[in-house]
């Protein structure tokens, strides 16, 4: 027997039920035999939410579409000297330098926690050689609590070859297929904006077997302390993130969406639902929130709310209807 009194509760519940009929699901790896389905398009970007557990004390991160954990390497890394952060106009320079606990500690301490989470956790994998990437990816195989790999071929803060993987289509493709060969997990490749033609790199890794692409990582930059006459960051240079790079990221998503056949994840300066929707309309199937998490730990959830509200107001029931609409209208 249905309790009609419950069905007649006022507008808040109507809003909820309206949201329930919204389809926010995203298939991030349609080419993959297992697929990678997110409950919604809002992801936490690598490097800004640590291993997820830190933010779980403040925010209900289980409501996110996915969490991308901090870039992980084979051995622990101590990162770059202080200062590592520098605020700029509408942006943030960082030179953390991939400080991380290493794959062994990740498997021992973090993965068991993730195994109990609803939200998929994607592990961002970084390295200095193809062999290191392969070693890390191999260790992730069959570990409960890990839903995918995001290949970090674009961190601007380590002084080795990683950036070259991101800047060279042939190397990027070679790395992608090498990792693909040792894992059954879906592979997302995170691209660098610090290249001449991002479309070329995108197509190369797509052909090499990438299941999805994240665009973009930070833009290389620096700041100088004029009182001391020296660079502000301990590492001299860093990666720029935040709203300052949003137009750059949006343009790159828009351009790559014209040629790529795999899902794109928009990332770069997304701080509100409007930003997120711009990326989706440019052609992104999902988005990542990074620097905005530092400004407001609840940013991602506010953005998710805003996307749902927008769809409700426009009478759109399925998020996929919005993906790439700006391509058709330009």
């Amino acid at each position, binding site marked *: 027997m249905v309790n009609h009194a419950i069905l007649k509760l006022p507008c808040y519940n109507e809003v909820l039920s309206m949201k329930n009929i919204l389809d926010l699901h995203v298939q991030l790896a349609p080419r993959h035999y297992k697929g990678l389905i997110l409950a919604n398009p809002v992801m936490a970007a690598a490097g800004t939410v640590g291993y997820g557990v830190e*933010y779980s004390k403040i925010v209900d991160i289980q409501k996110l579409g996915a969490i991308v954990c901090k870039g992980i390497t084979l051995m622990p890394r101590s990162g770059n000297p202080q200062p590592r952060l520098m605020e700029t106009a509408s942006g*943030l320079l960082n030179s953390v330098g991939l400080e991380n606990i290493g794959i062994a500690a990740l498997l021992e301490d973090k993965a068991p926690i993730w195994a109990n989470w609803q939200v998929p956790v994607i592990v961002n994998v970084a390295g200095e050689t193809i062999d290191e990437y392969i070693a890390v990816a191999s260790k992730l195989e069959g570990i409960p609590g890990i839903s995918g790999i995001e290949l970090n071929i674009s961190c601007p803060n380590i002084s080795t070859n990683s950036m070259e993987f991101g800047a060279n289509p042939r190397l990027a493709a070679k790395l992608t297929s090498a990792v693909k060969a040792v894992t059954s997990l879906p592979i997302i490749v995170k691209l660098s904006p610090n290249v001449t033609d991002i479309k070329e790199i995108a197509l190369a890794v797509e052909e090499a077997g990438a299941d999805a692409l994240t665009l973009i990582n930070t833009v290389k930059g620096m700041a100088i302390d004029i009182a001391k006459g020296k660079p502000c960051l301990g590492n001299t240079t860093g990666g720029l993130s935040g709203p300052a790079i949003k137009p750059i990221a949006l343009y790159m998503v828009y351009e790559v969406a014209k040629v790529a056949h795999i899902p794109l994840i928009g990332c770069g300066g997304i701080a509100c639902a409007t930003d997120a929707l711009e990326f989706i309309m440019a052609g992104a199937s999902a988005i990542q929130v990074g620097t905005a998490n530092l400004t407001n730990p609840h940013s991602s959830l506010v953005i998710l709310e805003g996307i749902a509200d927008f769809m409700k107001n426009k009478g759109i029931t399925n998020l996929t209807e919005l993906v790439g609409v700006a391509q058709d209208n330009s």
Partner: protein
Amino acid sequence: MQSLCTITSNVEISPGVRLMWVEAPDIAVAAQPGQFITVRCEDFMLRRPLSIHQVSPLSSPSTGGEASPERSEGTGEGEIAILFQVVGKGTLWLSQRQIGDKIDVLGSLGKGFSIPSGIARRKVPRQSKNLLLVAGGIGIAPLIFLAQFASSQHSITLIHGARTAAQIYPLLPLRALRSPCHSEPFTVIASEAKQSHLAQDKLREESHPSEQAPRSNLSPLPQEIRFIPITEDGSTGRKGMVTDILPDFLDWADQIYACGPVDMYKAMLELTCHSERSEESKLKKCQVSLEVRLGCGIGACYGCTINTKGGLKKVCQDGPVFELDDILWEEVRV
């Protein structure tokens, strides 16, 4: 942890230094001296970390969190204070907020000062210890909270160094040394509160003549505390730096707590190393609060990592309080 907090008071207590009280009952109850909050300032990417300067918890247990009907307006209960210097655009924006404005606060965060237990336990006699608090400039902020927190059980000396008299925390006149006598603590505190009320009213008249001042915002330091100002220009207290007079207290102190610029810590390290009288013991008993640029404030972004003798530490989560001799000072860049 994260909430919008209403500003109940915002006054300039010395040039460029503001004392702000906000409603934050959860933080007021849980905060430990040395912990901090972060405040979102306008559209800046990074939240500004600020030491918790004082707390005023609810006197009766709250049942409904922030909106608890038990919290009566204007009593100052369920509030925390921050004391900050306007050093950039973020703190300038914060200093311009008005009473009634809401600010986005995350806290309480980090690991604060560790205080020797003086609580009387069964079969263990109560032991009072001599705590030396050393403040350089605005570094006084967390040490007032510590002094209030620990004063009922320990003997406290607070040295506050500044460039000039106007920058000395405007709370107490120079006090005579007192032995830690706990015979009438409540009457002592009550009389202090009265004095502070007057001082606060005077302050308000000077800086914000139109504001109503229903209560005291400058909580008193309990009388047991010995307060020693020292200024570089000698305009109040002794003339010099805190590190000039510190050696006189090293033998007295069982535990040292310091908050100030990195140069002060480096000078202290020299002192404690070279003090023949106390070489071994004092080095191991000095806690300092470190300030670096923070990203997330909760240990997730690795923006504030420093190297210590115990390995990599996150200032926001493993600190901001560290043992003085744990930090690899040669690697700390000012």
